[in-house]
């Protein structure tokens, strides 16, 4: 497989890889770096493509693993600190909330979710993968995926209702 063929192969899902990386790593810059790393790795492993029926699933799994590792090696504390601003402060929420528009609020809400739920929301609601596909990437059964998905969506729902009741449009 030459480079041209490789790029053609990964073209359909290269942005999905990026978006998942960004979902997990939050920063666009980091996500770009991670994506580059991942494609590099994929290129090195291109012989394995034959063995994988679904290169996309393989790529997404790699992305998940890579990003989760990155998160672990970072000061996990740091990340949580940033987001706990939203979660812990109850009524104080409205101050920060007022500044942001509601759509980017949703973005932040999702980013605050535990990693696994984040991945599932990203893969289902944004990328529209089937539960079986998501299950392959996470190593979970579709029923477990649904449960986690439900939890995640409900959490967002709660925040949105709260938000709405504060009268922010």
């Amino acid at each position, binding site marked *: 497989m030459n480079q041209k063929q490789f790029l053609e192969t990964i073209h359909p899902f290269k942005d999905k890889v990026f978006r998942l990386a960004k979902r997990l790593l939050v920063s666009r810059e980091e996500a770009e770096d991670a994506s580059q790393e991942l494609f590099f790795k994929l290129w090195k492993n291109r012989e394995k493509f034959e063995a994988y029926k679904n290169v996309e699933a393989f790529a997404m799994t790699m992305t998940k693993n890579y990003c989760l590792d990155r998160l672990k090696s970072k000061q996990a504390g740091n990340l949580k600190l940033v987001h706990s601003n939203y979660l812990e402060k109850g009524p104080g929420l409205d101050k920060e909330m007022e500044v942001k528009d509601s*759509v980017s609020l949703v973005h932040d809400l999702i980013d605050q979710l535990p990693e696994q739920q984040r991945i599932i929301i990203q893969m289902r609601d*944004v990328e529209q993968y089937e539960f079986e596909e998501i299950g392959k990437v996470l190593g979970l059964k579709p029923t477990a995926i649904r449960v986690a998905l439900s939890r995640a969506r409900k959490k967002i729902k709660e925040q949105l209702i709260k938000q*709405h009741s504060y009268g922010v449009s």
Partner: protein
Amino acid sequence: MESVKKIDSLLKKYFEGETDLREEAQLKKYFSSDLVDSKHKQYTPLFSYFSNNEKEQLSNAIKLPKAKSQRFKWMSIAASFALMASVYVGYSIKQENEIKDAFSQTQMALDFLSGNMNKGNQAFAQLDKFKQTTEIIYNQKNK
């Protein structure tokens, strides 16, 4: 467009994680329209977000480890050809020279042999006696 009731039940399903992709698409469509019921309005950001987020893309082109190794491969192949060509040319020239040398040496050897044979031939005219064997060979010349 779906009825409010229908949307209600879809939403319920949605938060239970029970909707399929087609139903989720329906919800997205509803929430992007102008006909969102007031009681549903709080969810608009969610579904708008999902509709838009798909569009986020990598800004930079993917860089793969370039043909530095490939370049090297081609260079070394080109070098090999150049080397082979020069060896061939060198060899051809050498061969040609060797052939020329061999030719002149052969020429000299033959001349030497020939001279010595003729020595006998010349002497022959002066000799009374001569070897039987020589007569057989040189017979025709003397005629």
